[in-house]
């Protein structure tokens, strides 16, 4: 069994002791994030905050602290999407070809118990396929949740669906206390929908073309309204397909907001001929990082946006930026024997996070006020790439980073706006030169990159590319550090010591996410 993420390591405390050169984290204060899913308790009703605060997908803040786990008990589906080839599982919520094992509800339960024991950060159990969690009557999905609610009532239950069968199951969902439902909605206009969905199976018939899209659309809207009227939090996922629904997603954003959706998650199309999807085979491209961000920015002010989605596999395990699924295969779990559910470690961890949070909210607000005062409101915001392994701290070595989290920092504060995967470069064995080039193209719209540590060579290459490597905030909080950096940056800019970075576009890396914490 691979090593457990200890509480220390995730909070960066362990590294603090080990890395003598790193000064202790002084909470220098920071901005409260102004947007979307990074909202804190001040931005929502207390009962809603209670529901989302430990859910890594519904709260951006929580995603630095809490882990989720998907169990692949739902292989059947009731629609066909052009971005999905079910020979290789769904490429939307679960990546192509990467559900290693389909589980029975019994196996799923054992797996959950085993993971809960190893990962105290685990707070959410989701069912996201590999097909549709509500197809085939949702039998396996509800069976799994029923057993789980008895065994581990403190774990949150969560499911994803395409919405077609949703209206039939809303009562069951409410009965099982499933607080979080994700509906994938790619259009609110059947004219657009017919280019995304070749067919659906509904009411004992296969429907195609406009009819199919129309039925799906109506069922999705009905299901969404039924859920929100019962107080169930709904996240809407949309796959951004350039030339097909990219601009249309602004209408989707408005439509789902008016029906009470809590969060809107716009994800880039994953398209590769090797996946054998219709879009992959016809050369339909996915969006660039910049196109995605522009669309997300245009939707700002509508339904709140989720920007930290990692498009996880239907059997993903761990914090959002990682996948430890391969540590928990059926064989490994069988070998563990009976595992008793132990709430103690998880409870201790949750209390710890709770304590940490209170101070953080105040510190962020103070830092933001400081920047607003010294820099003024005119300065242009910049992007900063951050190497982190959780806990909202800059606690990862540049060379070990499997992804960089992207923060936008400016007079309005610092906020998480996305993440860029670089895992293929680090593990591909393609030579250091290539690896570095890949990282550069993934973050070339950033002004600086924050790391716990960085070697001399990559440091020089970054500077040559116009990205400043910054290790002086090692192990400190991300947002506070970003604001401190921004204050200094604005000053240097004012003195003409540096030039603002021209906007460049970064490349979105896709493919099966296999990175594991070292």
């Amino acid at each position, binding site marked *: 069994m691979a090593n457990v993420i200890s509480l220390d390591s995730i909070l960066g405390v362990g590294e603090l002791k080990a890395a003598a050169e790193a000064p202790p984290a002084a909470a220098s204060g920071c901005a409260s994030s102004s947007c979307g899913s990074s909202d804190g308790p001040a931005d929502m009703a207390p009962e809603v905050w209670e529901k989302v605060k430990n859910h890594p997908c519904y709260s951006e803040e929580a995603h630095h602290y809490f882990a989720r786990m998907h169990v692949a008990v739902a*292989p*059947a589906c009731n629609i066909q999407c052009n971005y999905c080839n079910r*020979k290789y599982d769904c490429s939307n919520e679960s990546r192509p070809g990467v559900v290693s094992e*389909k589980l029975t509800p019994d196996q799923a339960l054992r797996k959950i118990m085993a993971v809960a024991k190893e990962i105290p950060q685990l707070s959410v159990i989701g069912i996201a396929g590999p*097909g549709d969690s509500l197809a*085939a009557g949702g039998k396996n999905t509800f069976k799994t949740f029923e057993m789980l609610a008895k065994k581990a009532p403190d774990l949150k239950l969560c499911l994803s669906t395409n919405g077609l069968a949703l209206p039939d199951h809303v009562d069951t969902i409410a009965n099982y206390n499933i607080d979080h439902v994700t509906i994938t909605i790619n259009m609110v206009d059947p004219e657009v929908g017919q280019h995304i969905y070749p067919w659906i*199976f509904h009411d*004992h018939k296969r429907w195609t073309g406009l009819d199919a899209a129309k039925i799906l659309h109506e069922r999705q809207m009905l299901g969404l309204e039924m859920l929100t009227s019962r107080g169930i939090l709904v996240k809407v996922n949309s796959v951004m397909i350039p030339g097909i629904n990219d601009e249309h997603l602004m209408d989707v954003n408005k439509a789902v907001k008016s029906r009470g959706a809590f969060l809107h998650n716009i994800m880039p199309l994953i398209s590769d001929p090797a996946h054998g999807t219709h879009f992959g085979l016809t050369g339909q491209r996915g969006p660039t990082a910049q196109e995605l961000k522009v669309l997300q920015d245009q939707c700002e002010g509508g339904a709140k946006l989720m920007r930290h989605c990692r498009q996880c596999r239907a059997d993903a395990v761990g914090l959002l930026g990682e996948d430890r699924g391969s540590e928990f295969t059926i064989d490994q779990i069988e070998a563990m024997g009976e595992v008793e559910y132990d709430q103690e470690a998880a409870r201790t961890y949750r209390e710890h996070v709770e304590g940490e949070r209170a101070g953080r909210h105040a510190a962020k607000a103070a830092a933001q006020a400081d920047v607003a005062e010294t820099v003024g409101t005119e300065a242009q915001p910049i992007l900063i790439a951050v190497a982190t392994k959780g806990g909202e701290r800059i606690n990862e070595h540049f060379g070990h980073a499997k992804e960089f989290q992207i923060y936008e920092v400016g007079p309005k504060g610092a906020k998480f706006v996305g993440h860029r995967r670089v895992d293929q470069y680090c593990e591909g064995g393609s030579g250091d030169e290539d690896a570095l080039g890949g990282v550069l193209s993934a973050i070339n719209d950033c002004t600086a990159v924050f790391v716990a540590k960085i070697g001399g060579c990559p440091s020089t290459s970054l500077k040559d590319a116009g990205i400043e490597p910054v290790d002086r905030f090692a192990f400190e909080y991300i947002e506070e550090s970003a604001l401190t950096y921004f204050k200094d940056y604005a000053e240097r800019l004012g003195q003409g010591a540096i030039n603002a970075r021209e906007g460049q576009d970064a490349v979105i890396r896709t493919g099966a996410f296999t990175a594991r914490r070292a």
Partner: protein
Amino acid sequence: MAYKIKASDCTACGACEAECPNNAISFKKGAYAINADMCTECKGQFSSPQCASVCPADCCVPA
């Protein structure tokens, strides 16, 4: 008359099993198969064979 599953294309998703009105489909020895004695091709029950209509791999075909 009955339907059968082309095993080479089947993804083992189980969607057909859930739709068959006659419980003719089951998972046996690692694969889904149609019991020809129980299959009615859905005649008199639905306008189309349910397994073929739901199958994502289009591998439920007349035997």
